[in-house]
């Protein structure tokens, strides 16, 4: 049996006495697409922040391809293979679309600062290569023609797609998407679903996604975890989760409360 790419066990964090997340366990295999759902404030984004070391866990461990990520800085975690997007889009707004992607390709380039300042051959070669790689990546999202536009000027949906492209440029094993379809219309969402499938196959990566759009979650996730009040209350295939009374209660309870 193949060991999972991402192995999280008993993960938990407290914010000033409040248990924001507790006993979170997940094993993700290569090329798997996992959905993370739950009412607002259930702790979904907290999971992502813990996986990328933005927050330090109070308990538990995270291992990525057998390596413990504890104590690593955020960029080191990214370099070891977890990339993410943000719920409230965080692009380098004033930089061009292609530069956004090329920044994430940074660690793939090896020329030194001296080579850059003196403009030695390795600079030209690797810059040319990374431009080509970035354009290819943008092309996956049909954005190559926008390469020189400032990222902040793109429409909302394109900004979300650019964030995914940027995350992919770090060459991850696991991709975390935080509400990738937020603010998209149904046809854009449909297109996004196809793209997610496509990049999974193309780049051989596992994907964990947080999403409120149930058609998307049910449509592409092979497995779904349901969080409520910082705890996993259910998990299984889309069918199982859909029919689970605990899940229905959590969502309906939430609706009544709203």
């Amino acid at each position: 049996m193949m060991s999972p790419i991402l192995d999280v066990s008993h993960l938990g964090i407290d914010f000033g006495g409040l248990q924001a997340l507790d006993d979170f366990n997940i094993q993700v295999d290569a090329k798997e697409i996992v959905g993370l759902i739950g009412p607002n404030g259930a702790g979904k984004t907290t999971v992502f922040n813990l996986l990328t070391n933005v927050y330090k866990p109070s308990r538990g461990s995270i291992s990525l391809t057998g390596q413990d990520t504890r104590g690593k800085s955020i960029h080191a975690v990214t370099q070891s293979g977890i990339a993410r997007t943000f719920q409230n889009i965080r692009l380098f707004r004033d930089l061009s679309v292609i530069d956004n992607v090329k920044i994430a390709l940074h660690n793939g380039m090896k020329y030194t600062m001296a080579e850059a300042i003196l403009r030695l051959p390795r600079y030209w070669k690797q810059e040319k290569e990374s431009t080509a790689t970035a354009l290819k990546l943008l092309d996956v999202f049909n954005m190559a023609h926008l390469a020189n536009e400032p990222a902040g000027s793109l429409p909302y949906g394109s900004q979300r797609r650019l964030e995914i492209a940027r995350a992919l440029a770090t060459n991850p094993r696991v991709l975390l998407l935080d509400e990738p379809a937020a603010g998209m219309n149904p046809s854009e969402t449909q297109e996004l679903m196809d793209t997610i499938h496509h990049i999974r196959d193309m780049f051989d990566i596992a994907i964990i996604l947080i999403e409120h759009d149930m058609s998307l979650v049910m449509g592409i996730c092979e497995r779904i975890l349901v969080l409520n009040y910082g705890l996993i209350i259910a998990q299984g295939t889309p069918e199982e989760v859909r029919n689970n009374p605990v899940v229905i209660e959590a969502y309906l309870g939430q609706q009544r409360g709203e």
Partner: protein
Amino acid sequence: MMTKKNVGGRYLLNTVATCLLFGAIMLVVESGLINRYMAMMLIPVGYNIILATSLNLSAGFLGQLPLGHAGFMSIGAYTCALFTMAVDMPAAVEFPLGLLIGGVAAALCGVIIGLPALRLRGDYLAIITLGFGEIIRVIILNLDFTGGAFGLKGIPKYTTIPVVFVCVVITIFAIHTLIKSRHGRAILSIREDEIAAEASGISTTYYKVLAFSFSAFFAGIAGGLYAHYLSILGPANFGFMKSVEILVMVVLGGLGSMMGSVVSATALTLLPELLRGFSEYRMIVYSLLLVIVMIFKPSGLFGRYDFSLGDSLGKIGSIFRRKKKPEQGGENDESDS
């Protein structure tokens, strides 16, 4: 994207333009078209350009606000001056060597200060660099070999217009090429969004310290030029006032615009000299400028626009030829004054 030949052409174009500019300056100076006094003003213009463009690296491109740039300048100035006064070598050897040592000393201080300071954000960073700047000043004031409050006297007058010109060109070239590289993009990404930069695999601490010490290096060089221009040094020359003066140049020109820094450093150095009797009001005008620019045009005169000779000639050419617009691939542009 740009072809190889095109890039080579741009380098040639800029080299020729730089040489022409140098020739023009020397011609004007030597022929006596401007008086000796005004000719000598070109030296302060030069080192102020270096100070402004180097501060622009950390303020405009990195997006932090260091308030101790004069501190780095003073380290370069004292190190360089003490070196040239101590050793006995031909000027052509000891001066460039001294400048380099001064720059390296300032860069080292940049690392020492930057490592702890850059963990802090925004206002805290500003205040801690201000604190370091003041501490450097107090230390220089209290050391024996720096001459204390009396300062250093009799520093050889090595700084000439060609030397300053070469230093300016090197500074602009190095900062420009740094910015247009993967290292430069990493620096820019920190300005744009630190968390997203980290999430994209950029070690923000490393690149902050890098940009900070790079900027300190050139401040140190400017300090060395300054010391060997005035031939006397005192700790009072490097107070908080001087740091703010440099900041005004950067802000007025536009945070993140090299050309802006060059133009405004030139203008703000020459203006007070051109308008006699103005000196009493100089600082008032500076501070008013700072406030007014921030309120009405926070991006400065040039925003983040940078001049590119190749692009500009291309545009002019295209107007004449009435063909379609030339490609706007900015990534290999060369800009210099």
